[in-house]
């Protein structure tokens, strides 16, 4: 029992990331009809927004602390972050500690801007081109984006810790009365899961309860008709692209404490997220979210020692295996609509 | 007993009864038109005939054999060719290549791998394709990309490609839709010529009454998924039910 709960929990954080990336992918696909291979790169850029913010916050100058001495007896040189001078020491330290959540504020405008620029500058010219061309140009863009990040931030993963308040682990076992230490789960992963639920809920509410969202949903169902109503659907879709980019970016920001970001993390997630979208059903938002969590949890179960004993290596291939089976038995994915991408 | 026998065919899409108890018999070597207002089920019926849709109940026999459950390419190999509303041709290929493909399909069946010998050495096929283009007045364009042709010529090519397979039944889905008057008349002439020169049955779905009455020997009127009347063109013209269901609308428009 506790083992099963643990695996479900373990699957949630990866599942959250898959779900958030897949949600954006399928939004873009559903609204613009574009297959965006650069979506993983947006996730990665989001993560590097967090890195950037934490670097800015810790930007320091060197000063001499007369009250202390180093081991040679000279006055000690210490690094003082500029932020101390701006907001005071305790507030400054708090901000540095909370760099990752604070990055969200920075990432939202940056990601929306990147998304809108991408759509207006590049993607828009590919609406009428074959899907193969869309895949190829966004694939090229993904390479470019990740190489730029690699140039400025290097190839090594950059540790970006969670706020100290969330660094410990939560004893789920004790909480559920299954015995202390039977299920240990890091706080931050809980935060990440909750965060992803909020974002997903937000996107769905936005699409459901705003006029903007209604137009977008109508456009996903039948673009031509909405166009005939005189609604400037293109403009709305551009904004939708920005929102999808922001969702991917925020998924990246919050993921940094779980896995130190590196320049190729986007590509690693992209391949799996595509599989998630296809399993969920191209163009289905609910399907993407559902499939994201399902596959994340499945992957986690496949990594259990007991499973690996009988089926060695299954954890590495289970997602692909499921994708192959689903595509062959339910060609439209779990919740795909008829007529989407079937040619 | 006609070459095409449709018996008691029903097809439902969710709450919509697209075809209900359709019975249709198309006699060999005739031109049979199927007309009806939008949403009458003409396209659904056509899709059933070519194997794209499977009806819920009923039978479709072509030349004594059932077509149901067969794949579209198998039905085509039985001798049913289809002309589409928007001409479906191989746009990236030259006109001559377009014409050669059905000839290969007729000769070699659904799949045969000639991966090494050159197309140029298939002299008989090339010759047959060129003759066919000649008879369609398309010979001058044979090395052009077919996508660059006019709508009317694309239609001629598509009909020619279907004929090159020597089908026993030619299905035409609104072959003059969206065409200028001159192109429409050309297409009518071409179809008349085909009817006179070949042993072929033609079933045509059409909106344009000019086309229907110039060609058809028998007409079935379809309304709300079911055949209303079937008769000769003259009788159909005067039929009160038909006027009410269909012709009245077009006359008013």
């Amino acid at each position, binding site marked *: 029992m506790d083992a099963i709960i643990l695996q479900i929990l373990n699957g949630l954080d990866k599942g959250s990331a898959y779900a958030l990336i897949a949600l954006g992918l399928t939004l873009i696909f559903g609204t613009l009809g574009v*297959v965006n291979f650069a979506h993983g790169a947006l996730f990665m850029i989001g993560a590097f927004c967090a890195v950037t913010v934490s670097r800015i916050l810790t930007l320091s100058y060197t000063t001499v602390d007369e009250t202390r001495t180093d081991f040679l007896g000279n006055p000690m040189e210490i690094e003082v972050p500029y932020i101390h001078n701006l907001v005071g020491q305790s507030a400054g330290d708090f901000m540095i500690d909370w760099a990752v959540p604070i990055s969200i504020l920075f990432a939202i405008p940056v990601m929306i801007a990147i998304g809108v620029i991408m759509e207006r500058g590049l993607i828009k010219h590919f609406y009428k*081109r074959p899907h*193969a*061309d869309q*895949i*190829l*140009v966004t*694939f*090229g*863009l993904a*390479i*470019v984006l990740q190489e*730029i990040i*690699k*140039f400025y931030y290097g190839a090594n993963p950059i540790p970006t810790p969670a706020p100290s308040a969330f660094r410990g682990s939560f004893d789920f076992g004790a909480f559920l009365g299954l015995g202390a230490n039977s299920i240990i789960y890091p706080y931050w992963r809980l935060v990440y899961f909750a965060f992803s639920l909020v974002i997903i809920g937000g996107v769905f509410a936005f699409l459901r309860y705003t006029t903007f969202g209604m137009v977008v949903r109508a456009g996903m169902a039948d673009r031509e008709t909405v166009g005939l109503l005189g609604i400037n659907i293109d403009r709305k879709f551009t904004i939708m692209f920005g929102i999808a980019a922001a969702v991917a970016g925020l998924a990246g920001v919050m993921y940094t404490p779980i896995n130190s970001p590196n320049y190729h993390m986007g590509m690693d997630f992209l*391949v799996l997220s*595509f*599989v998630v979208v*296809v399993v969920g059903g*191209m163009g289905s938002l609910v399907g993407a979210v559902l499939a994201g969590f399902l596959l994340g949890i499945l992957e986690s179960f496949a990594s259990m020692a007991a499973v690996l004993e009988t089926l*060695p*290596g299954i954890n*590495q*291939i289970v997602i692909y295996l499921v*994708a*192959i089976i689903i*595509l*062959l038995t339910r060609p439209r994915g779990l919740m795909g609509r008829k007529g989407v*991408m079937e*040619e | 007993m006609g070459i095409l026998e449709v018996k008691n065919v029903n097809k439902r899409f969710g709450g919509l009864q697209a075809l209900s108890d359709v019975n249709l018999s198309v006699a060999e070597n005739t031109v049979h038109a199927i007309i009806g207002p939008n949403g009458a089920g003409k396209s659904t019926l056509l899709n059933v005939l070519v194997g794209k849709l499977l009806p819920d109940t009923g039978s479709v026999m072509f030349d004594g054999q059932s077509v149901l459950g067969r794949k*579209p*390419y198998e039905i*085509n*190999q039985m001798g049913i060719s*289809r002309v*589409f509303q928007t001409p*479906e*041709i*191989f*746009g*990236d*290929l030259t006109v001559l*290549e377009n014409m*050669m*493909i059905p000839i*290969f*399909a007729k000769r*070699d069946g*659904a*799949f045969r791998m*000639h*991966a*090494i*010998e*050159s*197309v*140029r050495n298939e002299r008989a096929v090339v010759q047959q394709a060129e003759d066919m283009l000649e008879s369609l007045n398309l010979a001058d364009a044979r090395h052009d990309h077919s996508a660059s042709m006019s709508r009317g010529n694309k239609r001629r090519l*598509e009909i020619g*490609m279907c004929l090159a*397979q020597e089908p026993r039944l030619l299905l035409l889905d609104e072959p003059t839709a969206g065409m200028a008057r001159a192109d429409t008349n050309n297409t009518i002439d071409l179809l008349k010529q085909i009817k006179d020169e070949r042993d072929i049955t033609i079933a045509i779905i059409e909106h344009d009454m000019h086309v229907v009455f110039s060609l058809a020997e028998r007409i079935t009127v379809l309304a709300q998924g079911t055949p209303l009347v079937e008769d000769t063109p003259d009788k159909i013209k005067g039929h009160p039910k038909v006027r009410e269901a269909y012709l009245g609308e077009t006359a008013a428009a």
Partner: protein
Amino acid sequence: MLGLTRKDAILLAIVTVVALLAPFILNPFPTNSGFAQFNAGYPDLMQRFAIFGIFAIGFNILFGLTGYLSFGHAAFLGVGSYAGIWMMKLLTANIIPGIAASIVVAGLFALIVGFISLRRSGIYFAILTLAFAQMSYALAYSVLTPITGGETGLQLKLNDPRVLDGALAPGERAHANLFGLDMTSSIEMHFGAWQFTFNTGYYIAALVLVLAFYLSIRIFRSPFGMMLRAIKSNNTRMTYTGLNARPYALAAFVISGMYAGLAGGLMVAMDTQVGPERMFWTASGEVVLMTILGGAGTLIGPVLGAGLIKYMENIISKINSGILHEWFYWMPDGLEDFVITLVYPFVGKGWHLTLGIVFMLVVIFLPGGLVEGGQRLRRLAQGKRAKKSATQTNPAE
């Protein structure tokens, strides 16, 4: 000639001559000159030109003709490599059985993957092939370690059985060879300040490349090739012409898988080692880039694309800041630093950035690749002349 039209025969002749003279053509700069770094005429790189050329030619038979975009072709190359090295370990270091096994095993694997993947088309097909390739990669890394050597991969070892080969003298290593002709053996020729290297391995790879190219011309010009183009052009009409597109596409898939296997076998024949990274999806992406860059659906495009990308990879990635300073030393100091700062991200380790940008530019502005670019230039030159004569003869229009 050889069953080809004059135009195709000329193209084949050019490819053959360039392949044979590559050690000269690719080494235009004297060994000690500052430009020697742009020389590409050394065996290792030339072998890669030929091998990736073969890989891309095969990929083009699938993607260029049928339009099916496979994102998992590196799996066939990898499987071919593993089959090849096992033959060399178990049977003989002679490369013939190894390469034959590479082709056969990759072909069989392609048959299975293709049979399943081709039930879908479009993006679903791309994702399915990607899924198969990633699965192969993950398995080669983990469970299949007894067969694949896991992360370290496989090499020729002293204690390999090699049942067909005689025992080696103590301390001697087995060399990949063709009936005793060592793949690594080279003849060097000095000509003034120039140095040219003629390597056995390269010439064998080049010979295979020419054969592979010839075969692809025959396929392009055959009724089968025409059917494949018909699938890409209009699958609906294909079906309603009584043709079953799936076996045609599957045949193309298997043929291109066999080409990939051949490339994998040749790779093993050259460097007698293999690791799973060969199957990673970026490797599959690379062959897509090569084909598009050169011109998908054209005969010569993939070979050009493969050559250009491998050349860029080797030459651009070797440029470092020292070399940049050497180039721009003649500029005023401030300007020199500025220019170097601008150029630096694109060279050395940043060559992927250059690749990505070039690739994007090609997809955006030149979807037909380098071949289309060449044709446009030619038309531009001809067009100017044609326009002149047109205005003279037909002033009314």
